[in-house]
């Protein structure tokens, strides 16, 4: 598995080259959100809005009305939690083309509860006009701007930074509202998003060896949530559906899947893996993923529980599935928070 660095940084600069309408706003987190290169390459299109998110959101809405497409860069949590009203009334209600590039979603940050966007999907799924995308690897990062840019309305992106794995071939780009099918099977359907997809891939690989047949989908379009590929995958499994997300189990992808199953009369069990409706705390991402059950072993244990079996899979077995690469998150550098 290839490990990539600072993918957004270079991709954004390349993407912006022939798009003079694209401007970048920084909420005083220029280095931490990989836009230093953009600032140095296109200084006339880079605007520092400081630590004043309410003003930044409304200002972006105003600039978008003049035909520019502002790409706001800050941590995901600062994009919606403090400036929620400004996002709603200055951006989403007037359906402005503002792009919210939110870094360190969920429990990706040791910055603790103030820095952890764990309910962003819950609140932004409920915001009319909003499109929500989430990346899970380097290929997703390289293609997410192609999808986001033309959308007529605001787009929120759960973005990854620094060291990220390439899980999908560089040529197989993200497609709007279309899940990636990572494996096909009949026992269980597993829907994963963001960083949870890498964990899921490790778990499904070893479970397959134990004879469990799993359909595994990676979802990158979270709103709208109407992909026929997902719907079809929900109808198939013998033992039920598992969702796994770097978000509170309430209001995120698990909830979206529940709604889709209920509305389509799919009478199967649904198991939601995510942050178990709790606030988190400051610690390294891998530690928190273990603490809140967002890692590969959590899926294995969930599958064992569903099937009433013990496969005898250990941590070491999962480590061995790491495709001869160090787990990408473990080398995440501690940057400015």
């Amino acid at each position, binding site marked *: 598995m290839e490990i990539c660095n600072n993918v957004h940084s270079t991709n954004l600069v390349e993407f912006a080259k022939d798009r003079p309408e694209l401007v970048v706003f920084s909420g005083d987190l220029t280095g931490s959100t990989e836009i230093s290169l953009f600032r140095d390459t296109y200084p006339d299109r880079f*605007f520092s*809005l*400081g630590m*004043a998110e*309410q*003003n930044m*959101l*409304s*200002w*972006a*809405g*105003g*600039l*978008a*009305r*003049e*035909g*520019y497409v*502002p790409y706001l860069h800050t941590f995901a949590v600062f994009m919606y939690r403090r400036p929620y*009203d*400004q996002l709603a*009334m*200055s951006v989403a*209600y*007037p*359906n*402005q083309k503002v792009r919210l590039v939110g870094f360190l979603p969920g429990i990706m940050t040791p910055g603790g509860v103030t820095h952890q966007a764990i309910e962003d999907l819950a609140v932004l799924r409920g915001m*009319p*006009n909003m499109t929500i995308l989430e990346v899970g690897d380097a290929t997703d990062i390289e293609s997410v701007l192609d999808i986001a840019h033309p959308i*007529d*309305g605001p787009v929120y992106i759960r973005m990854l930074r620094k060291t990220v794995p390439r899980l999908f071939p560089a040529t197989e780009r993200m497609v709007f509202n279309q899940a990636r099918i990572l494996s096909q099977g009949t026992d269980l359907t597993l829907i994963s998003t963001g960083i949870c997809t890498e964990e899921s891939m490790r778990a499904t690989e070893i479970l397959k060896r134990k004879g469990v047949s799993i359909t595994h989908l990676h979802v990158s379009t979270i709103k709208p949530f109407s992909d026929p590929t997902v719907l079809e995958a929900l109808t198939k499994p013998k033992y039920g559906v598992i969702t796994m997300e770097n978000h509170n189990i309430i209001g995120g992808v698990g909830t979206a899947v529940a709604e889709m199953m209920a509305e389509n009369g799919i009478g199967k069990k649904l198991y939601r893996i995510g942050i178990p409706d709790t606030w988190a705390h400051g610690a390294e991402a891998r530690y928190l993923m273990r603490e809140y059950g967002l890692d590969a072993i959590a899926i294995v244990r969930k599958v064992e529980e569903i099937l009433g079996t013990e496969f005898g899979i250990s941590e070491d077995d999962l480590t061995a599935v790491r495709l001869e690469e160090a787990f990408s998150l473990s080398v995440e550098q501690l940057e400015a928070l």
Partner: protein
Amino acid sequence: MNNNSQASWQEEAQRVAFGIRKQVLELTIERNGCYLSQALSSAEILATLYTKVMNLGPSIAPMLPPPYEGVPGPDIPAGSGGLYHGEHAPHLDRFLISPAHYAVAIYAALVEVGRMDRAGLKQFNIDGYSVEMIGAEHSPGFELTTGSFGQAVSQAGGIAMGRRLKGHTGRTFVFMSDGELEEGQTWEAVQALAFYKMDSVIVYVDVNGQQVDGLTKDIMNIEPINSRLLGFGATVSVVDGHDVDALAKAADEGEPGKPHFVLCYTDTAKGIPLLEERKPKLHYVRFKDEAEMAIYQKFLDEMSFETMEVA
């Protein structure tokens, strides 16, 4: 000669202000309730901006406002209420309304300056029409959705920045209320306007000293507004908000490289002295009984521009 033409714009502005007061009082009686005091305090500000200060193109909206057409989206453009302020052109000014609770005063002003049909005001607060009680950006005169306070100044900054990037020479005017100075976002906006040297932004503030619960000085003090704004890097003119000469002159008192604020000190009972006794509870005027309503009806019937004390 010169005196005549000067007298004419001032009289025109005062006539518009009188018309705003009269129409809104009429509506207040007809509906038994309206945002009357806001119209009384802002009448000369709006009148002077529309008739003298701003360089707006002719309205490109229907004289009679269309029914509510839906929320902005692929088929419905944002900011349709702004069409009453004319086309967007590089050399023309823009006018952004911040306190949506002043909607009735805006509608009345649009009628008085010939941008909206008088019949449009009759649609005020009638279900299904766009002439809403607290306007949004589909409402006549509104380009932004500003019922949640403090957001227009920031949006004006973004609009003015976009216009500067495109080389526009027109200015961007904002009308706001003093209560909005209590919102933290307002100060974030002034900070950013000063940081980006947005001298094309001119903000007229109706300092009527009143908010829902009472006087601003008792509910949450905002003074000294002048020195606070100066400290944030804006330029400030302080004027009698019922003096059309002072209001007009203040527009040109800014300095290059700074956003300009005009603090217009006003009276929420201006033109209708009957309201004095209800101060400071004037946020929304509703009459107590038919007897009181009759007193106001009599006042309305006798209202005339010629006999009214103006300025």
